[in-house]
């Protein structure tokens, strides 16, 4: 079912305002732009479990429909807002389960083998540039720092849980996370 109106020319934050006005077709356009990102985040975090990832994706867009009026463009870009909501919802699921799903892989190393992507129908130029900048910054981190950050970020593990999983002193894990984030801040601050 095609949309009766063409929303493709509207900026993301305008779409959000239109959704707040009750324009469901604007939500359709937002879904078209970001469902691959939202579903991708959920699928990556939930161990490639498609039904669970689909549920999270639905939750995220329904949440956008409900909370569009509270979106603040000065706080975050729409893409970041959507992806962050997805991450939090996914972490909630992971922590409620206690046991991580089979095949769960909280790592960034897998992304290095992903095919290079550029702007196109699946991804806007702006989003492609953002991803490239952040991936570039991550690639400068030592593997052990990247590993600790990934377990915290995608796995939803606490520092103690990471230390236990990797059989490392808690202080070592804390240092790796602190130094890794500090390096990322130095590289990315003001650029994103």
């Amino acid at each position, binding site marked *: 079912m095609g949309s*009766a*109106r063409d929303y493709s020319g*509207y900026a993301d934050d305008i779409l959000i*305002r*239109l959704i*707040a*006005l009750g324009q*469901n077709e604007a*939500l*359709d356009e937002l879904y078209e732009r970001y*469902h*691959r990102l939202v*579903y*991708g*985040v959920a*699928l*990556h*975090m939930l161990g490639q479990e*498609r039904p669970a990832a*689909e549920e999270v994706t*639905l939750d995220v*867009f*329904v949440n956008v*429909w409900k909370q569009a*009026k509270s979106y*603040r463009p*000065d706080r975050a870009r729409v*893409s*970041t807002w959507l*992806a*962050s909501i*997805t*991450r939090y919802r996914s*972490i909630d699921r992971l922590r409620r389960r206690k046991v991580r799903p089979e095949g769960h892989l909280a790592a960034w190393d897998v*992304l290095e083998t*992903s095919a290079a992507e550029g702007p196109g129908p*699946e*991804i806007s130029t702006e989003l492609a540039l*953002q*991803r490239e900048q*952040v991936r570039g910054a*991550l690639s400068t981190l030592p593997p052990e720092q990247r590993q600790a*950050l990934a377990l*915290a*970020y995608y796995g*939803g*593990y*606490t*520092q*103690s849980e*990471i230390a236990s999983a990797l059989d490392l002193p808690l202080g070592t894990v*804390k240092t790796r*996370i*602190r130094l890794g*984030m500090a390096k*990322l*801040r130095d590289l*990315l*601050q003001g650029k*994103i």
Partner: protein
Amino acid sequence: MNTVESMADQPPHVHDLIPAYALGCLDDSELAHVEAHLAGCAECRAELAEYRQISDQLVLTSPLAEPALDLRDRLHARIAALQEPPETRPEGSLWERFSAFTRQLAPVWVPVSLVLILVLGGLAFALWRGLGAGQVTQPVTVAFGGTEHAPGALGVLTVSATGRVGTLVVSGLPQIDPSQQYQLWLIEDDQRTNGGVFSVDQGGFGTLEITAPAPLLGYSGFGITIEPAGGSPGPTGPKVLGAEL
């Protein structure tokens, strides 16, 4: 002496814990301490804002993936289910349901209602104080309604934290002659100040970025009229949308 004692009493900063807090991986034993400290330390809150920006961006590195084709239809169905109740209710039915609910709470309603009156009164006072000078501390949304000339039109004005800048988004406005445009008016008593002109697309949608000479929420209302292209010094055409503050 007093300086040394006051320095000793100062709580230590939590700089070392902020990156982990931003990631959401602090253990419970440290979480309460950090949150309590952040509540009273602007320096650490500012640092947290920087790390949160980094943390929010990391998720963009996730691989993209394509869900099942029917997921969009499932989203439509879920939204439709949430929209099932009518959009507007007669006030009487809402009041009847509210009254029935409060009757159930009769034993505790009196003290609860007193608390509510105090809380709502306080919030209204704070809002009046906050908006009385036309100032805002966070974005505020103002809804526009259509007039008899455009009964299906809607609009929303989002006023920025500074109070002088806003974004207007409208829908449902009719197409007008190319020699005409819609013009926004900022209303204060008998004065009508130009807020800008805009056109709408074939779907009746339009946007307007506004920079006002005074805080937007200091005006008593807003109106949108049909004017010659480029605008008029004052309203001359029919009013299509309006909002009162």
